[in-house]
């Protein structure tokens, strides 16, 4: 009787184990292709974000160059006005 009970218990445990293992192995798993897609998308996004930061830094550098050149142009224009006036005055003095 005892031997029989033990066998039944063993069988039940074995069945539970088999069913449990079957259930867990039947869950959804990404295929190799899907894994590759996710990894490639992630890598491409990270690369693109890095590129975007580099472009932003380049644009900011250009912006500061533009600001400097604007100031330089204003200075050159002021210099031109000053030189125009001074040279004209010199030559008007010569003609007198």
């Amino acid at each position, binding site marked *: 009787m005892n031997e029989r009970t033990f066998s039944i218990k063993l069988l039940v445990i074995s069945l539970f184990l088999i069913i449990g293992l079957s259930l867990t192995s039947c*869950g*959804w*798993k*990404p295929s190799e292709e*899907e*894994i590759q*897609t*996710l990894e490639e*998308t*992630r890598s*491409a*996004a990270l690369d*693109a*974000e890095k*590129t*975007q930061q580099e*472009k*932003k830094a*380049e*644009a900011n550098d*250009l*912006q500061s*160059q*533009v600001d400097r*050149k*604007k100031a*330089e*142009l204003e200075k*050159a*224009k002021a*210099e*031109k006005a*000053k*030189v*125009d006036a*001074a*040279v004209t005055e*010199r030559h008007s003095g010569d003609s007198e």
Partner: protein
Amino acid sequence: MNIVKITFLMVIFSMASVFAQNSYNYEEMTEEQYLAELQKWQERLATAEQGIADEDARIASLQQELDALNADIDQTWTDIYAKCGTDGDGNQAYNGELGQLRNDVNSMLSLSAEDIYGKMAELDALQARLDAQKENDLSVVSANEQLINQIQSLIDQAQEKGKGAVPPSYTVMRGDYLWKIAANPDIYNDAFAWIRIYSSNADQIKNPDLIFPDQTFLIPRVVGPNEHLVQKGENLSMIAGYSNIYGSTFQWNKLYEANKSSIADQNMIYPHQVIKIAR
């Protein structure tokens, strides 16, 4: 030994956690999680690509603006040089000449006072070179103007240095008068300073209008600690009020008493006159 093991384990643990952050455990991932992750990265990729496109457009626009500004600046300078009757190369050559002149003046300035005094003619030639450069229209360009002012200042310094070597006395020649002696560039280069010669040689000059050949006059270059060189607009009261004199305008009489021999009228003192300060 235990510390080494612990450190090794910590390094392994750190590397494992970094690896865990950067990769997925696909075995435990559900379909929903996979799709959510994929969507998240697709959105980040799209956002970044849009950002790149925006930055590219901004870069192109800024580059265009920068090119236009550079062209405007170049054109403005071309106009400036044209107004001066030359071009960029002409200005560069002019600037080079000024640079050479500055070096020559600097060399002169590095000489001793005696050497400069002996080379006053060369210093005058440098001044003439500078004056000739000033005639060029390019001299009104700010950068050149600044350089010219700098050279002029160096020449002035050299002249001042050379004056320090001028003999401290002067022997009167036929035709000299105090006004003429004071105006001599080697003396004071200022005719109005005749009174300084007069007041410093009061023992020899009884009448400032009457000096004689071969008289030797002291030419003071500095003012002593108990002397005051009168400046334009000053009077005895004002001088007495200076903190380094008496600090009280009411003590003007003390100054007058000490200088009675050279001050005829207490209300009449002259610029360049040297007043003795009685202590």
